[in-house]
């Protein structure tokens, strides 16, 4: 393991989260259980996968059965659904929105393009693996994934939150330098960005 690899004990060599998680107190467990049942999804259509969001939100599939609803502002949102490919220009906005979200926050990579570039693997404008720039909790493969797949991902996310396993936001703070290095490789941060480093409290 080189010095560049993320440290902090939550990632193994392959970047897979390992299971020795921080101990949760009783209050934290109750809070996790409660927050799994009521989540707000940031309304940001980052890519073409967003075309499956209106069917999921509206009457045919009705996402609110899961206690999930759309939210306009990042500061009040819990889930960031990366709907498909991210161009470098969008990634900049995505990272900025992600950093504005309050803890705990969860990222779902929706579509094959979030895993390894998808069909845009040789495009100069899109990034390939979203997990290098922000931590992703669940990847959904498919081009595009059906609403069923989104709901399965939500179910899995809920069970992960209840078990305390959805800790991407923790990973981001503990390995901030790693993510920051990858981000700086593809885009420049503007001078007006909040520069303080996220710290795990």
């Amino acid at each position: 393991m080189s010095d560049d690899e993320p440290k902090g004990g939550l990632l193994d060599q392959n970047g897979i989260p390992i299971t020795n998680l921080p101990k949760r107190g009783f209050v934290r467990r109750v809070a996790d259980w409660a927050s799994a049942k009521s989540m707000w999804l940031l309304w940001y259509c980052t890519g073409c996968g967003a075309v499956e969001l209106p069917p999921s939100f509206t009457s045919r599939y009705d996402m609110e059965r899961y206690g999930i609803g759309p939210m306009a502002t990042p500061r009040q949102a819990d889930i960031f659904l990366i709907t498909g490919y991210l161009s470098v220009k969008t990634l900049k906005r995505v990272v900025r929105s992600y950093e504005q979200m309050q803890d705990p926050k969860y990222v779902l990579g929706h579509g094959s393009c979030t895993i390894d570039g998808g069909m845009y693997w040789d495009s100069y404008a899109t990034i390939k693996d979203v997990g290098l720039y922000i931590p992703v909790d669940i990847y959904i493969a498919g081009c595009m994934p059906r609403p069923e797949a989104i709901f399965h991902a939500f179910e899995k996310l809920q069970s992960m939150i209840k078990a305390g396993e959805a800790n991407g936001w923790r990973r981001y703070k503990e390995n901030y330098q790693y993510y920051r290095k990858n981000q700086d490789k593809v885009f420049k941060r503007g001078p007006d960005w909040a520069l303080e480093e996220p710290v795990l409290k």
Partner: protein
Amino acid sequence: MNMSNVVKRTVRPFRALKFLGRKPHTVRIPHEQHNDIEGDPLPTERYRGVHVNNWDECISCGLCAMVCPCDAIEMVQIEGEAKVRPEVSYGRCCFCGFCEDVCPKDSLHLTSNHTMLDTSYDTFVFLPTPMLREFEKEYRVEPALLCRARKKDDGKAEIIVGDPYRKVE
């Protein structure tokens, strides 16, 4: 504004009550099958989902790798195998089904399994085998349980998960 207009505007909202009598068309997904307008289950046979490959029929021609628009398929030489086998990266695949169309032996096939999710991106590269049929009933796939190979230094690959020749009916 005349009187009839006022009455009209007062009464009209109550017309919405008729929607109470209609059957809801929400598909309650984990508990309910997704059906089309005539009640036939979806997805159908034509749905382009995750691949299966019958290793007894595959002749390792590599046409699937050549036709793939997304560079998702790689022919992998597996230790102890005479032939190379297609390995699909689902981080690339766009589910166009061209590989199925071009396959001369019809061994590569796109099933209707559409849901595939995992916490790690590594598991999305695997060898299509009949093992996938185990998951066919629920239309979802656990990629971590499927047949996966790891490249070794000599260029060959060894299978680390699964048995490609296991028969699944």
